[in-house]
């Protein structure tokens, strides 16, 4: 009983060590209780919005604590700035947009990039500016991009500014996408406030399937593979080439299952609340080239970069050479968005170069047969996986060390020993490979079969899934990888 009271008490406090994630069982129980209240509001009620915003802010408080105040401040300023931009015309309108963007980006730049800039300035000019201990507010990269898209859309007159702070607040704080996306556009989302989805049993089953698969993807597959990846990257010099190569595959799968698992849970919860968010992943590792990969991977970010960076720069309207430069710059910004580190910049630039090379040497009209398709898929997967090494490694040095070990110390016979040592990693890699490389149509067939199950089996499915997760997990749950961005 004491333990129960202690846990209830703990529930209302923010803990830096244990921020709230979708994967917390406490969150799932709270969500169920929240839904009971939510069911009794009429679909277009302002009270319903208020209820959802209050829960979303509590969710953000449990994830980020005092940074809730910053978030609320950003929302209120954006709301006012958008209305102001809308009321102006000509150069004043443009100037205010730039001021708004600068203001919106200032928090992101301060929290995420100031230490990076200071470190590099010190290294370059031999200065001794001191770095600060900064805690990155969770989800700041996502909500900053979301608010920028809103301001720019208002400026472009693609959308009317929201006349109701409650509605704009709801769009920004909606907890399913709040801390790790998908990045939702106001023009897609705000109309749904007035016309929420009719939630029926078909949608209920779809949402339950999304939530369950998301939990399994994240907690069973990604976290388990993550432990192996951590082991290798923590002391890269202590492992063989095969172990490093398998860590590359493991991380490629881990990041996919981690982030797509989060997106699945977010989309599933949003569905129950009556809102449809766009897909963020579409079988990305079955892409036969790098261009297609970026249409299937983190779709909401790719589209954001396309619509707010690449096309405004000039897109393909200013000649081929400029198009390649714009493409490169867009991917560079994509890399920087992921983190304040040269390895992310290198990762973004490398993807930019790959996209340019693909556009240079392959014409979209070229017909491909099945074999070239398979070869394309394997090549793309390995190129992407290779670049993930820079994404995951703790530094440039360890990334190159890992690559060097793969190319110089790989003995295929080591695989036999590895199978004896870590059979569970091999098994999980095989399972993950089967899942990611299965064609979409086959997956859809399986999904349709699962969706045809009667509703009463879903509590059992969820119970079994949650207990299985408990059986296989150890002392801690990994935070979602994309929480750090």
């Amino acid at each position, binding site marked *: 009983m004491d333990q129960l009271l202690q846990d209830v008490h703990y529930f209302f406090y923010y803990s830096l060590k244990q921020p709230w994630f979708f994967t917390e069982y406490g969150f799932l129980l709270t969500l169920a209780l929240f839904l009971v209240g939510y069911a009794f509001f009429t679909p277009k009620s302002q009270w319903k919005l208020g209820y959802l915003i209050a829960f979303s802010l509590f969710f953000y408080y449990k994830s980020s604590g005092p940074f809730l105040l910053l978030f609320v401040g950003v929302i209120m300023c954006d709301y006012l700035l958008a209305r102001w931009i809308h009321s102006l015309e000509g150069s004043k309108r443009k100037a205010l947009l730039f001021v708004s963007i600068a203001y919106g980006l200032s928090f992101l730049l301060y929290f995420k990039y100031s230490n990076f800039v200071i470190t590099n300035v010190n290294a370059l000019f031999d200065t001794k500016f001191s770095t600060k201990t900064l805690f990155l507010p969770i989800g700041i990269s996502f909500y900053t991009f979301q608010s920028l898209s809103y301001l720019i859309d208002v400026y472009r007159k693609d959308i009317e500014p929201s006349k109701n702070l409650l509605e704009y607040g709801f769009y920004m704080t909606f907890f399913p996408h709040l801390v790790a996306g998908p990045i939702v556009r106001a023009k897609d989302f705000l109309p749904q406030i007035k016309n929420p989805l009719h939630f029926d049993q078909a949608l209920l089953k779809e949402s339950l399937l999304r939530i369950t698969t998301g939990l399994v993807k994240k907690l069973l597959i990604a976290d388990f593979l993550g432990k192996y990846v951590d082991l290798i990257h923590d002391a890269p010099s202590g492992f063989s080439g095969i172990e490093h190569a398998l860590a590359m595959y493991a991380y490629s799968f881990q990041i996919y299952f981690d982030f797509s698992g989060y997106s699945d849970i977010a989309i599933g919860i949003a569905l129950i609340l009556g809102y449809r968010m766009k897909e963020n992943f579409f079988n990305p590792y079955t892409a036969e080239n790098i261009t297609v990969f970026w249409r299937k991977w983190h779709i909401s970010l790719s589209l954001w970069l396309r619509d707010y960076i690449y096309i405004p720069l000039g897109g393909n309207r200013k000649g081929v050479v400029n198009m390649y430069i714009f493409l490169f710059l867009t991917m560079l910004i994509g890399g920087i968005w992921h983190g304040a580190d040269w390895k992310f910049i290198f990762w973004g630039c490398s993807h930019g170069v790959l996209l340019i090379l693909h556009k240079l040497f392959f014409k979209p009209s070229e017909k491909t047969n099945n074999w070239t398709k398979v070869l394309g898929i394997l090549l793309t997967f390995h190129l992407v996986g290779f670049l993930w090494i820079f994404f995951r490694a703790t530094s440039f040095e360890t990334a190159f060390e890992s690559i060097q070990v793969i190319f110089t110390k790989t003995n295929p016979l080591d695989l036999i020993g590895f199978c004896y*040592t870590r059979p569970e990693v091999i098994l999980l890699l095989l399972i993950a490979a089967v899942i990611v490389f299965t064609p979409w149509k086959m997956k859809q067939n399986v999904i349709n079969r699962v969706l045809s199950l009667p509703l009463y089996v879903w509590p059992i499915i969820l119970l079994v899934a949650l207990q299985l997760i408990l059986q296989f997990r150890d002392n801690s749950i990994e935070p979602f990888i994309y929480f750090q961005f």
Partner: protein
Amino acid sequence: MNSSRRAILQAAAIIGFPVFILFSYNYAPITLGLGEQTVKKIDPNTPIIAQAPTKTSFQSNASISSTEKEGIIADLLNKPYKTPSDTSQKPAKTRPRLPLSAEKEQHVSQRILLIGDSETGGLIYPLNDYCVMNGHKLEAVFTWFSASILNFGYSNKVDELLETYKPTFVIFVVGLNEMYVTDLERRAEAAALFRKKLGDTPYLWVGPANFTTDKGINKVFEQSADPGCFVFSKDLEIPRGGDHRHPNTEGYKIWMDYIASYIQSNHAYPFNFLPPERTNFKLQGRVILANAAKDKGY
């Protein structure tokens, strides 16, 4: 009731029901089993595998019963080893022995702390048998899976362990994860830091039971330790487990005999450590498990 409202309530029930069951089980004073497996609880505040020992986590570890800890270790040790079809490792026919010289040392009861990487997990029971039979107390074992000297040198775990358990003798086993390392200067720095942490506490630094030729880590350790406080294990011919790296149960016993012989006969501060006549005594001390892949400590 309209259909949307009904569906939302159904969603609440379907999500809430399984989680409610799991939380009820979490707070219930029973633990269920399924075959040989324990049905695990959510237990949000008590980790199943203990975190690396910070001052606060020592307190939280208190909520794991000693039976549970023994269970974890027993699971670890009782895991069936797969015998590879082809292996160059052959079990030693006789256990390596150093000449015993117990008579030169008066009997002193020691409070022993065993710390190190995953190798310590296999040494726990043989060491416990030695301690019980020789009148020593195995105070605690800190097994830091996947750890290297960097973890022990740069973290403050060792300071905390010494402060908490106040051992009179420390046995430190590390190096199996560092066979291929070449950044020896950095390792030497960490080794020196580790040595400094031990202060005046007598210790035995046990080199790794090499599964391959190392790139110099044994030399680093030997150089870092005081004279008579380091023992090589790199040339021991001991049977290995299925991973070709760690010794198997028999291998750990052989290794423990070797370590004990060194303590009794060759150590700078020798004490009685005769081979036990009986084995499999109940585990005495506290066992703390951590994983360097999750918590590297610095």
